C-alpha cells in the first residue's frame, strides 16, 4: 500500500437526470492502482468515464460508492492536494490574468512564499515555453498555449503526483512531443504521472502502466507488455521484386498486400511456412528486405476491449 500513489477500490458514480430522474452510471465499480514513480496512462474512448474518475480523485465529484486513496490519504483529502498537481480537461482559466499571475494565484493557494512563487513561476514559464507570451493576458492565448499554462500551474507546488486530464489535447505534433518529454522528465525526477488520453501512440511511447476504461468499467489494467498478447498474429514481409517482375502466387493467402514500385509488403498468416514462402520468393528472383513477426498492439487491444464493452448494448438492440 505504501508505494501506491493512487489506490482506487470499486469506485462508482451514478448521476440522475434532472427531470426524468433516469440513472446514468458514469463509473461502475472501477478498481485500479498506480505505483509511485510510474507513468500511468488512463485510456478510453470519449464518454468512457475517464474525466469522471479523475474529477472524483481530485475531489470535484463525490463518489456514489467505493473508495480511493491518493498518496495514502482517503479522498477527498486536503493533505493529499498539497502534494498533487492537476491539469483539468480543456482548461479554462481566468482570462484576464497573465500566465505569471495565474501561477502566482496557484502558488498562493498552496501557501508558497512570494519569493518561491516568483522563482517557480519564472522557471515553469520557461519550461513550458511561454516566455514570449508573459505580458499577454490568457484571453489572447491559443488552445495549445492555454494547455501549457495549465501544465505550469499544475507543477507550481512541485507535486509528488501529477494528474493530467487529456494533456495532449489541442497540441500540434511538436507540442505533443514536448508534453511527452515533460512527462518522462517528471517521472525521471521521481514523480508519479497519471494522465488520461485517447491517443494510443502517446500511451505506448511513454507509459509504465495502462488502464483501459469503457462504459464506466475498467476493461484492462497492467503494463503495456502484459496487456498486449505476445502471440504472433502474423508475419510482416517486405521483398524487392526483379524489374518488371510480378508477385505471382506469393500473395496467395496473404493479408495487407501493398506494392510501391518494385517493393512488395504483405502479411502472412501466423501459421504460414515462412521458410517455404521465402524459398518461393527467391525462386521468383525477389530479394528479401524484411521479415518480422506481428504482435498485438495497444491499439488492437484498445479496439478489442472497447468493442467487448459495447457488445452487451448491441446485443440488446
Amino acid at each position, binding site marked *: 500500500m505504501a508505494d501506491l500513489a493512487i489506490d482506487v477500490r470499486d469506485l462508482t458514480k451514478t*448521476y440522475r437526470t434532472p427531470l426524468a430522474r433516469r440513472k446514468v452510471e458514469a463509473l461502475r465499480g472501477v478498481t485500479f492502482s498506480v505505483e509511485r514513480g510510474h507513468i500511468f496512462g488512463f485510456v478510453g474512448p470519449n464518454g468512457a468515464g475517464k474525466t*469522471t474518475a479523475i*474529477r472524483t480523485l*481530485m*475531489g*470535484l*465529484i*463525490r463518489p456514489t460508492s467505493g473508495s480511493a486513496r491518493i498518496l495514502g490519504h482517503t479522498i477527498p483529502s*486536503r*493533505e493529499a*492536494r*498539497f502534494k*498533487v498537481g*492537476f*491539469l*483539468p480537461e*480543456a*482548461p*479554462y*482559466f*481566468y482570462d*484576464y*490574468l497573465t500566465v505569471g499571475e495565474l501561477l502566482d*494565484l*496557484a502558488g*498562493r*493557494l*498552496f*501557501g508558497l512564499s512570494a519569493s518561491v512563487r516568483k522563482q517557480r513561476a519564472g522557471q515553469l514559464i520557461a519550461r513550458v515555453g511561454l516566455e514570449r507570451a508573459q505580458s499577454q493576458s490568457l484571453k489572447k492565448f491559443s488552445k495549445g498555449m492555454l494547455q501549457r499554462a*495549465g501544465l505550469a*500551474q499544475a507543477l507550481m*507546488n512541485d507535486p509528488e503526483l501529477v494528474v493530467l486530464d487529456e494533456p495532449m489535447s489541442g497540441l500540434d505534433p511538436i507540442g505533443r512531443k514536448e508534453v511527452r518529454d515533460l512527462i518522462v522528465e517528471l517521472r525521471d525526477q521521481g514523480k508519479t504521472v497519471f494522465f488520461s488520453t485517447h491517443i494510443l501512440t502517446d500511451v505506448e511511447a511513454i507509459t509504465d502502466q495502462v488502464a483501459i476504461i469503457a462504459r464506466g468499467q475498467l476493461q484492462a489494467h497492467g503494463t503495456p507488455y502484459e496487456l498486449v498478447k505476445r502471440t504472433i498474429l502474423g508475419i510482416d514481409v517486405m521483398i524487392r521484386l526483379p524489374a518488371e517482375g510480378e508477385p505471382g502466387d506469393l500473395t496467395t493467402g496473404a493479408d495487407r498486400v501493398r506494392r510501391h514500385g518494385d517493393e512488395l509488403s504483405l502479411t502472412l498468416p501466423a501459421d504460414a511456412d515462412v521458410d517455404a514462402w521465402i524459398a518461393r520468393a527467391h525462386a521468383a528472383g525477389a530479394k528479401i528486405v524484411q521479415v518480422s513477426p506481428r504482435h498485438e498492439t495497444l491499439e488492437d487491444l484498445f479496439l478489442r476491449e472497447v468493442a467487448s464493452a459495447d457488445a452487451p448494448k448491441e446485443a440488446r438492440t
Partner: protein
Amino acid sequence: MIGRIWAIALNTFREAARIRVLYGILVLVVGANLLAVVLGEMVTNEQARVARDVGITGISLFGSLTAIFLGVFLLYTEVQRRTIHAIVAKPIERWEFVVGKYLGMVLVLTVLVALFAVAMVAMLLIQDFGVSTAVLKAVVLAWFEVLTVAAIAIFFSSFSTPFMSGIFALAMWGFGRVTPDIEAASRDAAPWIRTLTKITLEIVPDLHLFAVSGRSIDGEHVSVHADLVSWGYVAMASLHGLGWIVGLLAFAALLFHRRDFV
C-alpha cells in the same frame, strides 16, 4: 487559511472590476443625484431633504441591485466556466472559496458605495447643503444593507442558476425592505395568514432596519435632514446584518460543499 481566502478575494475583485455594467451603474448614481437637485427645486424649502433622501436611496437601491448582480453571477460563472476545477483541486476548502468570493464582492461593493457616497456628498456641497453625521450614519446603514443583500445573492447562487438566484434574491430584498408594512397588513388577517407572515418574517432579513430616513423609529420621526438615529442603532442594525451574513455564508458553504463539479 487567510492567505487562500485573500487570494480568492483579490482575484474576485479583479474579475468584478472588469465588469463594465458597474461603471454604467456609477453613472446612474451620479444621474440620480442630479435628479435630486431638480426634484429639490420643485419642493420649496425641501431641497436639502430631497437631495439627501434621493442620494441615500440611490446608494441603497443601486448598491443592492449591484450586489444581487455580482452575487448571482460571480459564483455561478466559476462553476459554469469550470475555472473552479483548477482551484478546488488545490488545498483550499470549499467554504474558504465561498468566503473568498464574498470578501471579493465586499471589496467591490465597498468601493462602489464609497464612490456613490462621494458623488452624493459632492452634490450636497455644491448646493451648499452641508453634510452632517446623519448622512454618514445613513451611508453606513446603506453599506451594511448592500453587504447583506450580497450574502443573500451568493447564498442562492450556491445552488441555483443566475436567473432563479436573481428572482429569489430580489424577492427577499423587496420583502425584507417592507417588513413592518407586511406585519401591519397581516394584523387584521386570518390567523393562518398571521402565522404564515410571522414565520416568513423570521426567515427574511429585516432590511427595513437599514433604510430609516423618513420613517418612525421608536415613536420618533427620523430623517437624514435632522439627527437620524443614534450610533447605537447603527451598531445594532449592523450586527443584525452581520448575523445574517454569517448565517447565509454558512448555508452557502454547506450547499457548495455538497456540489459535484461536472
